């Protein structure tokens, strides 16, 4: 997030506020039932098996709440590297939760998340062009959008040089803390 500035004009009158119904999707209902291997778990197991094969791993351990991971590489001749990462506590991050894109799509990409709660705007004013479009090349520090909070416009800048792969939030809609806004591919495009 960069400096906040006073908005050029009110985006919406207060009377509108009460009419915004349920601005955030109900993310919890699907995970309320923790019993039984769900469809998601099935899919995840399949994905993990693929990961195992693709990366030539010998072992892979994974936990969810408390996020634990354990990897062991193929015990080929001379090779015996073991990586063990244990991130204490911590439930899922909203960022992980909210990303619609599959795991393959995000690998190696940078997700720009909202640092505040507010309303997401892709352009500085309703009749102006959006700051960026999908496919655009952006520079580190370039403004990608604004998030309005408490009548203040907060410009959100790119953290890296790269290409905008995907815009993950809808303009004029509320965003919460940590919600993914943009997916940037930092690989330098020729």
């Amino acid at each position, binding site marked *: 997030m960069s400096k906040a500035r006073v908005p050029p004009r009110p985006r919406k009158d207060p009377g509108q506020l*009460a009419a915004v119904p*349920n601005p955030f999707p109900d993310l*919890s209902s699907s995970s309320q039932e923790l019993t039984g291997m769900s469809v998601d778990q099935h899919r995840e197991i399949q994905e993990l098996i693929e990961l195992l094969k693709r990366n030539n791993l010998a072992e892979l351990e994974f936990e969810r709440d408390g996020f634990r991971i354990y990897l062991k590489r193929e015990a080929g001749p001379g090779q015996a590297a073991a990586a063990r990462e244990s991130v204490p506590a911590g439930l*899922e991050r909203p960022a992980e939760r909210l990303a619609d894109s599959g795991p393959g799509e995000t690998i190696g990409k940078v997700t720009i998340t909202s640092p*505040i*709660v*507010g309303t997401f705007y892709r352009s500085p004013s309703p009749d102006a062009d959006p700051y960026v479009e999908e496919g655009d090349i952006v520079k580190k520090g370039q403004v990608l959008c604004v998030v309005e909070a*408490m009548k203040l416009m907060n410009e959100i800048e790119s953290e890296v040089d790269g290409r905008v792969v995907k815009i993950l939030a809808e303009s004029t809609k*509320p965003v919460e803390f*940590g919600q993914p806004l943009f997916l940037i591919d930092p690989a330098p495009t020729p």
Partner: protein
Amino acid sequence: MFKKILIANRGEIALRVIRACKELGIRTVAIHSDVDTNAMHVRAADEHVCIGPAEDVLSYRNIPNVLSAAEVTGAEAIHPGYGFLAENAHFAEVCESIGIKFIGPTSENIAVVGDKAKAREILGGRGIPVLPGSPGELRSESEALEAARKIGFPVIIKASAGGGGRGMRVVNKEEELVRAFQAAQAEAKTTFGNEGVYLERYFLEPRHIEVQVLADERGRVVSLGERDCSIQRRYQKLVEETPSPAVDDRLRREIGRVATEVVKAVHYRNAGTVEFLLDKDQNFYFMEVNARIQVEHPVTEMVTGIDLIKEQIRIAAGFPLAFRQQDVRLTGHSFECRINAECPEKFTPCPGLVTRFRPPGGFGVRVDSAMESQSTVVPYYDSLIAKLITHGQTREEAMARMRRALDEFVIDGIKTTIPLHVRIFNDAEFQKGRISTGFLDRLLAHDSV
């Protein structure tokens, strides 16, 4: 009535407020930090907004994000619960200024009662019995000495901006005063950013008695009986009950009248608690006003039948109190045990995964908790995970019920204060109602013998 309320809290009190809203037909917005994404209060609300990372200053105490969450969801009012932003006058003021109703006292109320030395000064001037103490903040060592001599030793030095036992020092002899005064000032400055301290008479083993009050926006006030919160460890309450075994009808009327006067004197609004110290000779002294709903409010609900959270909401929405003082009937006796995720011997927090959570049930038993089997107690916030409340026709019945309920309560995976509560309720002095703020320390001292 409000159509939508944002609850600026987490855990059992957030769920408590959501339950009241549901019963009133009001939509609810939960806010949460990113470690609380799957917390029960989030799942129970109609809407939810992630407002920051785990650290409370960046989330639950993050005023811009809390207000933004109210704005984007169209919430008309905010219930702050207790802790976090509940007694933050600035937050209440900003709410007022942007047209979001703060469900609680006015920002001015919070500011006035938050300055304890000043509050005592105002109220003492109106004939309210206040603890013998310095007339206001002490500006110098000589002022402190003079005040202490007048009051008589032992005295206690307290920080004006303090609370919950922090920044307090007992001084038994005149020789110790100056050093203690300097140390208290320094500590107050470090801890609260305000070096103001004041002096009070120190009572050995008094009772902590507090009166629940409700004041509507027209200034009508009712008191709802007292709570005895003498079972404390380092000023942290562990067991509360109502009525107090030390308060008879005459004293109840008198304390209630004084509490009402206090509230009227500061033009207080909404729910609040007036705290008193009760000595062995049945003298009571005003200590402070808690400008919030309190953890222990359920015991008052059990004996009055009045839902205090709903009353808070109704008052904030501008409704006058629907009952008068003479309509308030206190029936039976109620206890509350605070079940904390703590090692019961050393009181160190014990976060972790609750593998099994089986609350007790049956007649006269109430559980307020946002836990269930497979819930995680995160290490970032306070360790209160459940309040176990019992009600009975007599103190004896309410105690027997508490013992029975404690016995039924299963919380596996983490350590809790349940074993300590079992000890308290099996103690002969406690059973006789012979308690004071020194009770628990004495009980715990037996361990080290």
